């Protein structure tokens, strides 16, 4: 990944080590990810599947984004397609919980969603970056309207329970002050000739000029209370109109306080490639995509179908399945080819005669623990009191995120926000609790940031992904070692069986990973089908 060539000018690496020396290794890592090492979606426009042998058939296991993408394209190409889905609905992790919905998790705990009309949470994916062209393409084709998803909100909070007396800080202020102080430091180093070895004299002038603009420095390259700094971080008294119009600049937070607070960790939240503006969400919830796919595919999908055996022979593939509502009733589905999108923790438990390479790959990927909790409040206090419209607050509390709805602004009545989006230890610990305990914990934590929680809380619903009966985890966590050893084996066709899903992608947890892995696998299955010619 170190591809920069040596350069007499200040190189990217020099800048990185300078930031590393100034603000520590973690900041350097943040800077590295800011500079971007990500790959674009491999989506290359509509797939060409012309020449499907007449009568050829494909059995698809799973009606999530991967399975339904494949079903849609293969059907259009002339294949006979059948889809088996464990849930009673299409979408898989593409899923929205709305008022009136009921969700029963593994272990049997049932939750009713008591949100008001039009209010929802997306327990799974909730945003589509502008470069996830596969997802955007299907939204367009299926007529799913989109609206802007607010990722970065300068007026949302960065919060540390161990800094600033536990008071949340506005993103705007932390970002402006961090940037201003770093610019001042770099300007000082430049003017003290500390960079002479790495930046030419001519470029130093430009660097200084750019630092002043970037950091909102004053004419002596200092970051101080001023109109230019307040234009970034906000004013003590905002400019207005009339006799009370005169603005009063605000006082920046000192560099030491910012560094000690660790709040700088939250600054690049919108800088990573996947989180860059513009991002979208389907109007009415992410589940609208799965629902639209489901309508489009209609009777091709058999619901409540629990696959219990997958067997391939030289002539085709047979899946045995049960009606999930009446175990013991066995049925079979048969086709020439099979695209299996069943999440790996479940697939690993289903007997399937594939070779040892694919079988080892299926068993090599642990699934991430994650939790989302939706909270309904009696009013939209985050807008009314705190002037936060969409976006995300980041905190070191176990809830990690509070995300405000990017829709329905200023609507009267109740409002729903995402009260927690948790990973790792915190998620595991809350998974081990009852849904009611999870909601209660999340309300307790969140009230440290928004004290209004205590008065305004109405009801909540908690989805712990390791308790989801249809995935047993949130998404595949590939270690680099497992990826090197098993990834290709997971993606290669074994006889008549191909796998697809976010687990067969480099876009862990993203729907675009499911879509692009599906199109990739479908393309290769199609090649084999064509090579075999007319159905024997």
């Amino acid at each position: 990944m170190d591809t920069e060539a040596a350069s007499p000018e200040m190189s990217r690496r020099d800048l990185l080590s300078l930031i590393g020396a100034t603000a520590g290794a973690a900041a350097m890592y943040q800077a590295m990810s800011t500079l971007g090492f990500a790959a674009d979606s491999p989506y290359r426009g509509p797939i060409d599947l012309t020449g499907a042998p007449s009568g050829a058939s494909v059995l698809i296991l799973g009606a999530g984004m991967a399975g339904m993408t494949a079903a849609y394209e293969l059907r259009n190409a002339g294949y006979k397609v059948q889809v088996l889905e464990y849930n009673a609905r299409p979408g898989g992790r593409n899923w929205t919980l709305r008022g009136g919905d009921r969700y029963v998790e593994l272990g049997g705990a049932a939750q009713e969603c008591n949100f008001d009309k039009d209010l929802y949470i997306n327990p799974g994916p909730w945003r589509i970056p502008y470069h996830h062209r596969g997802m955007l393409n299907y939204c367009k084709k299926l007529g799913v309207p989109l609206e802007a998803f607010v990722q970065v909100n300068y007026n949302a909070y960065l919060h540390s329970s161990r800094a600033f007396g536990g008071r949340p800080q506005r993103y705007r202020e932390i970002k402006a002050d961090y940037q201003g102080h770093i610019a001042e430091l770099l300007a000082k180093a430049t003017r003290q000739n500390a960079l002479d070895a790495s930046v030419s004299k001519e470029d130093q002038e430009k660097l200084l000029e750019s630092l002043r603009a970037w950091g909102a420095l004053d004419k002596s390259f200092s970051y101080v209370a001023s109109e230019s700094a307040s234009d970034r971080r906000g004013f003590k008294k905002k400019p207005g109109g009339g006799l009370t119009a005169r603005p009063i600049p605000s006082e920046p937070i000192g560099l030491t306080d910012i560094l000690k607070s660790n709040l700088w960790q939250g600054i690049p939240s919108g800088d990573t490639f996947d989180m860059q503006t513009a991002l979208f969400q389907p109007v009415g919830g992410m589940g609208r995509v799965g629902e639209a796919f489901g309508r489009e595919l209609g009777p091709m999908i058999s619901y409540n179908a629990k696959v219990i055996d997958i067997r391939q022979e030289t002539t085709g593939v047979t899946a045995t399945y049960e009606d999930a509502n009446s175990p013991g009733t066995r049925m079979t589905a048969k086709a020439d080819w099979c695209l299996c999108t069943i999440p790996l923790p479940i697939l690993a438990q289903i007997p399937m005669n594939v070779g040892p390479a694919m079988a080892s790959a299926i068993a090599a990927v642990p699934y991430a623990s994650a939790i989302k909790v939706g909270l309904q409040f009696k009013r939209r206090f985050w807008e009314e009191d705190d002037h936060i419209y969409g976006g995300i607050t980041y905190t070191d509390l176990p809830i990690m995120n509070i995300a405000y709805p990017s829709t329905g602004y200023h609507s009267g009545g109740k409002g729903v926000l995402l009260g927690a989006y948790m990973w790792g230890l915190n998620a595991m610990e809350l998974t081990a609790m009852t849904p009611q305990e999870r909601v209660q914990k999340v309300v307790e934590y969140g009230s440290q940031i928004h004290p209004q929680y205590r008065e305004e809380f109405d009801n909540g619903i908690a989805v712990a992904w390791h308790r989801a009966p249809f995935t047993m985890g949130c998404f595949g966590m590939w270690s680099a070692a497992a990826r090197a050893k098993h990834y290709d084996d997971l993606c290669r066709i074994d006889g008549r069986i191909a796998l697809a899903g976010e687990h067969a992608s480099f876009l862990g947890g993203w729907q675009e990973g499911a879509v692009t892995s599906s199109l990739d696998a479908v393309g290769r299955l199609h090649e084999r089908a064509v090579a075999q010619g007319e159905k024997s």
Partner: protein
Amino acid sequence: MKPPAVGLARRCRSIALLAALLGAGAHADDSSSISTGDLGKVGGAEIYSRICQGCHMPGARGAVGAGHYPRLAGDPALASWQYVALTVLNGRNGMPAFGLVSDAVGPMRAVHLSDAQVADVVNYVRSNFGNRFKAGITAKQVTALPHPDAEISP
């Protein structure tokens, strides 16, 4: 096989690794401070109730959906303490590994248990929920078992 002290070169590698994980294999999660940490020094009963029962359920009764979480109460596989300890250390199928070296814990969104804690939770599960195996496994015995890859190649 305690994780060795992390040297500077190792630390640099893990920064590169983090970037690689979030760059080449971007994840859909979103957090400024992922708390992976460890559980402190808590023992087997608490590890079970705070972590294991998320999947294996209170009372170790397991659960069934599209797949299943094994019922550990009365599970004959528990006869082999090595099988149980290796499962906790290295994971199994979708189950995460709890014996990762410290620099792998964060990128894998995992949780680290010490060898003593692994021994403790293995003893707890094998001698509770109606299971009647001897609870004498020691940290030293766990240390002698294979742990997840210490080196993570980029």
